[in-house]
């Protein structure tokens, strides 16, 4: 126990910076899970592939469209970053819409049981993963040679953001990448919060989440709300994908969505699935729990610790931190 306290104390600021950064990414992905659940009471297990698509598009955009081969600076960096952010977010948004259109809407129209949605979600997830795994320039879909987006091995996303120390907090260096991830996340989470709480379509989303039948009778277009929800969730996951590869200098790869996806799903449940602010809080808390837990028990336990925290929270508060209490 003494080692644990020592570890957490000595690495407190290091792990807080690390946890806030990764937690911000989890929070952005978690929004997609929680928004879709809020509207459809459905866990979109293909959401991790929505995240994956953005990393591949970011790689393609940086290499092919912007011709980036080295770190960028100043206005060029800002323009390229915003351009890639737009491309990644849109690609993920469109992917989410496609999943909704082909994997869920036909089932919704037929009033299929919940289990069918779950199976369809898993099927969509696998189909997208394997489609991308075949995009190495050697495989065909019908008579169409699939583009070489993935290559025979994971491709390094160009290091276009050079890491620079901006300041220190109690000796812990805080870099431009930390600020970029946390800053972009905060801005997007704030915009989403305003959108859902202050706009007409946002009111529609909340209405459908509360009582879809009543919302429909009051003139809310359910299909439009569902499509908007998927698109926004996809856009947030797309932005998270770009931040993930920038922060870790990660290689784009078709299985890349699995672990961040499952952790973000846990974050959504931790915060109270269906609750947007809960997903944000759950993401950040999960990130912090992972990192501080690693400092306490050893880094190899990092992931296990985050899930233990999740289990403990659910044991004592099954609806999650900000979710509504379950009525008997």
């Amino acid at each position, binding site marked *: 126990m003494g080692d644990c306290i020592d570890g957490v104390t000595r690495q407190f600021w290091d*792990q807080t910076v690390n946890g806030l950064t990764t937690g911000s990414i989890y929070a952005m992905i978690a929004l997609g899970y929680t928004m879709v659940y809020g509207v459809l009471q459905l866990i979109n297990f293909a959401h991790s592939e929505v995240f994956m698509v953005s990393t591949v598009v970011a790689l393609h955009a940086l290499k092919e469209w912007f011709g980036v081969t080295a770190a960028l600076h100043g206005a060029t960096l800002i323009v390229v970053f915003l351009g890639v952010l737009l491309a990644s977010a849109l690609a993920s948004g469109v992917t989410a819409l496609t999943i909704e259109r082909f994997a869920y809407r036909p089932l919704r129209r037929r009033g299929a049981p919940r289990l069918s949605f779950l199976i369809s979600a898993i099927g969509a997830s696998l189909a997208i993963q394997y489609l991308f795994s075949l995009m190495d320039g050697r*495989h065909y879909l019908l008579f169409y040679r699939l583009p070489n987006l993935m290559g*025979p091995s994971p491709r390094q996303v160009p290091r276009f953001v050079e890491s620079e120390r901006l300041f220190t907090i109690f000796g812990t260096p805080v870099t431009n990448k930390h600020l970029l991830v946390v800053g972009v996340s905060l801005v997007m989470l704030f915009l989403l919060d305003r959108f859902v709480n202050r706009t007409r379509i946002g009111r529609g989303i909340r209405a459908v989440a509360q009582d879809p039948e009543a919302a429909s009778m009051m003139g809310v277009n359910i299909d439009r709300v569902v499509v908007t929800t998927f698109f926004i969730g996809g856009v947030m996951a797309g932005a998270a994908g770009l931040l993930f590869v920038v922060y870790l*200098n990660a290689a784009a790869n078709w299985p890349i969505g699995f672990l*961040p996806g499952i952790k973000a799903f846990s974050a959504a449940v931790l915060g109270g699935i269906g609750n947007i602010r809960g997903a944000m809080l759950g993401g950040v808390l999960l990130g912090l729990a992972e990192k501080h837990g690693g400092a306490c028990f050893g*880094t190899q336990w*990092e992931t296990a610790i985050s899930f233990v925290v999740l289990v403990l929270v659910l044991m004592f508060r099954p609806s999650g931190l900000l979710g509504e209490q379950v009525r008997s």
Partner: protein
Amino acid sequence: MQKPRWLTLVAILGVFALVGAACNGDGGGGGGGTPDGDERIEVTVYGQGAWTGGANGLVLPSMQSAQIRFDELNAEEGYPATITFEQADTQGSGDAAPPVAQGAAEDPNTVAIMGPAFSGESRATGDTYNDAGIPFVTASATGEDLADFDWDFWYRTVGHDGLQSSLAARWVAEVIQPESLFILHDTTDYGQPLAESVEAAATDAGITIAGKTGIPEPAINTGVTVDFSSIISDIADSGADAVFFGGYDVDSGPFLDQAATAELDVQLISGDGSVSSSLLELAGPAAEGALLLAPSNISAGFVEKYQAEVGGEGFSVAIYSAEGYDAAGLIGEGIKVAIDGGAETPEDIRTGIKEYLDGLTEDAPFEGEAKSIFFDADTHELGHEAEELYYFYEVVQGDEALELQNLGNAVEVLG
């Protein structure tokens, strides 16, 4: 409205086409022709390993070199067989390997396997080949325990991790001499034993072990770049000035990169799993200064031939390329000896290859590009496993890009 049935039919055909495309791949390049028009026996050799996936930088050079050798044999006048070299792509995963190996073993034309390339997949598939009576020759799987499986048909043409780890520990203790060492591994069957062997040897040598941890979800297993931030904080907190990493390039590369970003100044030392072009790409400038060792001479004369033959498809760090060329040559010679001795069926050729491999001796070895090869009669390890076969490298900035500078073999470096 009722959807027309033909749409359903088209959809089903599309699915079949997709599956067909998925299974199709590139067949491994084929085996050349029959230039002299004589009656050759068609045989197939499978190369098992990470043809694709994150770790293929460690495997493709040896497979590409094997293809070069098989093409040469196919073009050789009077050679009695046409060898088709097929891909058995496991992506380096022990979990994915069994069905791939089963497919190779059930191919009636299979006479030998080059591989498995990694130790984990070797453990997962060795029984399959051994039970089928198919000789399998690995040019890169270095797990120390592989010989303990007592597979009659298994042969290894490189050194193993037992000697690698003791040499790494001596290198750390006698040459690098850090004040304290952090042990990091990827929790795989390859990385963890290697790192723990170095830990034990370093402890014996009086080096302080500042800490030790494993990566619970390494990229070699998940395909996802690891977030090393908390491990880096742990290492910084431990005060270590060197890290021994037991694992593969897809993890050591991002570790170096993220450590540099976090301003962690440590010396990375790693084994053959990190000796690849992927390390240089994934770590970027942070790779400079990394110290590596492997039972492979990547600056030997054969590498020039490899680069010339493979061209743009080649890897700047041609790890195990000469070993792959030699393994293919060894198999090819075995096929020739078997057929010249009267073997006609694949089963007889398999037996003939094994007899040829077993018949190699110190006085009459197979003379390869990397080394002369004969096998220990009991273990089927190299008969002359020696420190001279291990090479040490440092990543340096070359004229155009990062490259590996050969520091010499173990005898030269360690004395």
